[in-house]
């Protein structure tokens, strides 16, 4: 048997079912790895005691003949999910001291299926960022290094701690959330699989809100199959989230190996953009060839409004964020900076509680929603969003799924991030359109750069057709045979 921390969820599930491994043993090994990996700052809060209690309870259930979909599997939870009795920070100072007395639906679903929580992972403040550099709790670090360059790399963001934990063998899988690429981009940067499900597939109840019409929870794991297993445990209708889809959750694992023979895969010409390194273009072409070799037909398609997705996103998302983040006022929970005057108390609390990127977005949001600018910015962006969604709708008339690069670069150095906010936003150029259209998107590790950093490909599917997305992703995974791992992990 390989090291327990090196198992995939599917492998661990089989060993647990065969009685060759207990959840307690697996969880102890995983806690050891979590402690040994503290230098990566992947976790904000470790919960080893809770993990051991949950593992023992899982072992008892199993000996009683019960086993859920994630029975006994130790996972990490992005610190954006409210967890009962465990601090939930959203990576922000403004939630200082906040301990939810309720459990998010997604984590509750996972725990009901037997998952074991190792801790809460680091993230960009309020999930706003693409490098995990905006967390109040310090940057999470990517376990990967470029060949011959030992300087630290960012894990991507916002779910950077989750990606780092999964890549660094500090969890078998982790939850993420994805508003504009926050699962897929860090997954690509860290060489793991990340799935943003269709909007509405997973409940948003109990997830700290960023942009409510875009936020979606999803799994991060070390194989496509593991992502499918996790999604099956996370998803489902929830009456407490009015946008949660009331539809059956299929067995996402069932047809994962069914292959892509006869499928039509769209290759959007607008995703060939200037400034993207040749090796990313080459990897994309290789991905197309892998699918063709397995019997799929590649079809060039047009998604003509692609270039407007990022600017539309940077109106819609900040507008929703400025509204959602109005709740942090120093009165109900978290940080309060005292003052004799109520308005001054609000203003000082929010000035000291929010970091620079969050303030920028809240202010942009307040501006585009303010009288006189609402139509010019917010309404316009919502209309452009409709055109982007129409582009995809048109594509589905001819193709079953779409293949694109996941990111325009590999993980960059933590000491040399993009110079200004807009340059940082360009990280999400390939992922943001998918959120605007509400579609499922999967990032699969598919190769390495010339200097040994992971690169991902993105598979996009029709609404609620995660099964096809996972099938295509599995075909890429099988062809890529990606078995590289960060040094020493």
């Amino acid at each position, binding site marked *: 048997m390989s090291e327990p921390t090196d198992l995939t969820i599917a492998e661990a599930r089989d060993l647990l079912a065969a009685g060759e491994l207990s959840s307690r043993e697996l969880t102890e090994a995983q806690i050891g790895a979590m402690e040994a990996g503290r230098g990566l700052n992947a976790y904000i809060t470790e919960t080893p005691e809770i993990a051991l209690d949950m593992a023992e309870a899982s072992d008892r259930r199993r000996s009683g003949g019960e086993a859920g979909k994630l029975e006994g599997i130790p996972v990490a939870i992005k610190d954006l999910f409210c967890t009962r009795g465990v601090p939930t920070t959203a990576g922000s100072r403004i939630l200082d*001291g*906040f301990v939810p*007395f309720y459990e998010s639906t997604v984590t509750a679903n996972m725990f009901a299926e037997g998952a074991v929580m190792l801790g809460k992972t680091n993230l960009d403040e309020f999930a706003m960022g693409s490098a995990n550099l905006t967390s109040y709790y310090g940057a999470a670090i990517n376990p990967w290094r470029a060949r011959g360059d030992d300087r630290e790399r960012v894990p991507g963001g916002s779910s950077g701690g989750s990606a780092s934990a999964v890549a660094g063998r500090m969890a078998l899988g982790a939850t993420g959330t994805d508003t504009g690429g926050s699962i897929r981009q860090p997954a690509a940067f860290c060489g793991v699989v990340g799935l943003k499900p269709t*909007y*509405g597939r997973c409940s948003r109840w109990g997830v700290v809100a960023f942009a409510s*019409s875009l936020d979606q929870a999803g799994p991060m794991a070390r194989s496509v199959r593991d992502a499918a297993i996790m999604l099956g445990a996370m998803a489902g209708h929830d*009456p407490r989230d*009015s*946008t949660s*889809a*009331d539809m059956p959750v299929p067995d996402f694992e069932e047809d994962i190996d069914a292959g892509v023979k006869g499928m039509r895969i769209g290759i959007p010409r607008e995703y060939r953009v200037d400034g993207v390194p040749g090796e990313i273009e080459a990897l994309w072409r290789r991905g197309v060839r892998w699918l063709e070799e397995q019997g799929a037909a590649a079809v060039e398609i047009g998604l003509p*409004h692609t270039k*407007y997705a990022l*600017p*539309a996103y*940077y*109106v819609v998302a900040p507008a929703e964020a*400025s509204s959602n983040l109005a709740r942090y*006022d120093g*009165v*109900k*929970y*978290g*940080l*309060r900076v005292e*003052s*004799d005057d*109520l308005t*001054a*108390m609000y*203003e*000082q609390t*929010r*000035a000291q509680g929010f970091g620079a990127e969050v*303030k*920028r977005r*809240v*202010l*942009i*949001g*307040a*501006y585009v929603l*303010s009288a006189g600018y609402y139509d010019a*910015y917010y*309404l*316009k*962006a*919502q*209309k*452009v969003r*409709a*055109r982007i969604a129409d582009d995809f709708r048109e594509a589905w008339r001819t193709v079953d799924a779409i293949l694109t690069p996941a990111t325009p670069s590999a993980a960059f150095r933590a000491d040399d991030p993009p110079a*200004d*906010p*807009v340059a940082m936003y360009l990280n999400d150029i390939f992922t943001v359109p998918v*959120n*605007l*259209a*509400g579609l499922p998107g999967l990032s699969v590790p598919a190769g390495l750069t010339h200097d040994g950093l992971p690169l991902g490909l993105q598979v996009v599917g029709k*609404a609620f057709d995660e099964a096809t997305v996972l099938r295509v992703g599995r075909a890429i995974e099988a062809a890529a045979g990606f078995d590289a791992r960060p040094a020493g992990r």
Partner: protein
Amino acid sequence: MSLDEATVARIARLARIATTDEERERLAGELSGILDWVEQLGDVDTESVEPMTGAIEMPLKSREDTVTDGGVAEDIARNAPRYAQGFLVVPKTVE
């Protein structure tokens, strides 16, 4: 679209975020940069396009108008920075 410091001060007030002179100067530059970049949305023909307000087409559900939650004042209080006799405490607002 260039944002001046007075406009930054106005929206910071709307957003209830205290700012210093130095911050307003920096923010005016950064926010102008973002808004300039957003201007390209003007190139898209959106004549007769309905604004998209949600990610997927789905009718919102309604439910019985009954109480389904509550009675958790003590739980809420545990997270409040200041709480007394069943009330969240704020600075005095009436003389």
